[in-house]
């Protein structure tokens, strides 16, 4: 018998989205899913290397939070599991795939790889490969927004920053240090925990004295909420509230999204510790299936509309692979380029 936390009740009817919004959310989640499935295929075919951490199962978090923000204007910090965050903020699938292939056309010019996706244009401050190190960087970006507004008198500087990280990170000092500073200075930031229950092979409840992560906000006097991370509308609603709070200068929010990764920690993980029963329980909560059922039930989309989106996204992902295959390797003459700002 799998013991699971009770997921907070969310009344989907309250979300009231338009057809267009529904299509946009669905499309973004499908893009994340198809892209990652293609990555697994390419990894096993020897087209990408190193550690590759896929996001399958957690799509409602990336889509729910980032599509509620102003992508390209607001800032985002991610982790080693960063492909789908990059896609949600609008880094073209071609440029993400090319990066994974190590090509010059990649969003990090082939220098970063799977765990180090960056885009100044889309304000993706990076994928950070070590646990927790992106949280201070995100806190700095949020501080910068406050600084521009209050010190430099820039009224337009109302950008919000989202920092994504996992349950394992919340036992790390940087998490607590940055929660403290963000609350102290009322920084416009969302700390988004993707609690997928497992830090590689370490079960969340074996690593923490208080498994309910959202409660850890309370000691800093910060808003902390838990949300069904398999429900894109629930995540989106919570994110919208947190973003509004941040833009209004009312400070940070800790959002704990209860979610699950449908694959191992990385493609190198044999995934031997998670039980079949647990996996099956979470597969049944697939956020894409849940949302497509909702769209049809609410007459926000017809099955054929969703099929058309699926086909369109598959074409985008296939095109991204072709683009990556056709792209040039970085020039060996440029081995030293980008070490310094002048390069």
């Amino acid at each position: 018998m799998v013991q699971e936390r009770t997921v907070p009740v969310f009344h989907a009817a309250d979300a009231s989205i338009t057809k267009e919004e529904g299509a946009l959310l669905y499309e973004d989640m499908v893009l994340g899913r198809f892209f990652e499935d293609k990555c697994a295929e390419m990894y096993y075919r020897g087209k990408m290397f190193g550690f590759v951490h896929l996001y399958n199962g957690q799509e409602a978090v990336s889509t729910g939070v980032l599509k509620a923000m102003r992508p390209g204007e607001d800032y985002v910090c991610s982790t080693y599991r960063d492909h789908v965050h990059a896609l949600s903020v609008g880094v073209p699938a071609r440029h993400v795939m090319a990066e994974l292939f190590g090509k010059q056309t990649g969003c990090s010019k082939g220098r970063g790889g799977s765990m180090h996706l960056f885009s100044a244009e889309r304000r993706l401050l990076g994928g950070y490969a070590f646990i927790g190190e992106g949280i201070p960087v995100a806190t700095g970006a949020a501080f910068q927004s406050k600084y521009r507004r209050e010190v430099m008198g820039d009224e337009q500087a109302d950008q919000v920053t989202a920092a994504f990280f996992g349950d394992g990170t919340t036992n790390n000092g940087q998490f607590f240090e940055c929660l403290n500073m963000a609350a102290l200075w009322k920084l416009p930031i969302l700390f988004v925990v993707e609690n997928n229950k497992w830090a590689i092979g370490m079960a969340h409840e074996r690593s923490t004295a208080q498994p309910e992560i959202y409660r850890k906000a309370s000691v800093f006097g910060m808003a902390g909420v838990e949300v069904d991370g398999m429900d894109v509308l629930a995540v989106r609603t919570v994110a919208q509230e947190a973003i509004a709070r941040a833009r209004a200068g009312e400070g940070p929010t800790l959002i704990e999204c209860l979610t699950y990764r449908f694959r191992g920690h990385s493609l190198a993980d044999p995934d031997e510790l998670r039980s079949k029963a647990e996996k099956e329980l979470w597969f049944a909560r697939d956020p894409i299936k849940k949302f497509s059922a909702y769209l049809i039930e609410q007459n926000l989309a017809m099955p054929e509309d969703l099929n058309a989106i699926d086909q369109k996204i598959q074409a985008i992902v296939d095109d991204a692979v072709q683009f990556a295959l056709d792209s040039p390797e970085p020039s060996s003459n440029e081995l030293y380029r980008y070490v310094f700002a002048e390069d």
Partner: protein
Amino acid sequence: MAETLLFNALRAAIDEEMAKDPTVLVMGEDVGHYGGSYKVTKDLYQKYGELRLLDTPIAENSFTGMAVGAAMTGLRPIIEGMNMGFLLLAFNQIANNAGMLRYTSGGNFKIPMVIRGPGGVGRQLGAEHSQRLEAYFQAVPGLKIVACSTPYNAKGLLKSAIRDDNPVLFFEHVLLYNLKENLPDDEYYLPLDKAEVVREGSDVTILTYSRMRHHVIQALKTLEKEGYDPEVIDLLSLKPLDFETIGASIRKTHRVIVVEECMRTGGIGAEIVASISDRLFDELDAPVIRLSSQDIPTPYNGTLESLTIVQPAQIVEAVQKIVALKV
């Protein structure tokens, strides 16, 4: 400007750059109300406000990471390590993020930040407060490393470090903050990649930096009396090393002594000797002499501590020995 103490020269550098550019700010422990552990930012918060002289909680890794994030998004933060040794706690942010991120991001972001503060062996401060992190950090790609040694170069170098678009590790020395010197009235900047020829000479090239420059100057008194004519170079830039200046001197003297305060193993001197071997081996008339601190945690006891670092008498002996060697 009249006679100025070194800590005030640093303060003037920060003040001038902050007045000129609203994106320049200082972050760290006790940099605001308290004015910095060595008073480098004394009273600046009254002029620029608390957000520009940001007193942070004691969280070195996190406030250093915050500075990286602020720098990536267009500010020019100056981090003060209350003692540079504390920044071992920020090693990850300095190495992985400040140092490497421009490269791993394929040039998407630049990180214009200065990480400055007191380093070196003081007077019986104990091992943890007597670190020479320049040696630990020299292997990190993407960092520039500077060590100031006089009020004049402290001011000019810090101003340039603040204006630089790269992360700059800027080492001050705990025992040099009260050095005095007359500074120019006019604003000036010093290049971050140029060594200073402190004394021209022909017998031997002495390469040194930070406080050891002053030990070398003490040794000069004896050496000059004995008729020696050493050339003394203060490296100022520890990374990159100014091999134009170093090379020109070695081509003249053909003998080299390195005098450093970091430990011998993996020190700045080790890198210099290796680079001299790579580039200038044929110019040498004698093996390079390396005078470094002992490879031990700096002891608290005063006598043991003074045995740990290089003393002027050792420099005199080294010059006598290397000049006596006939080719």
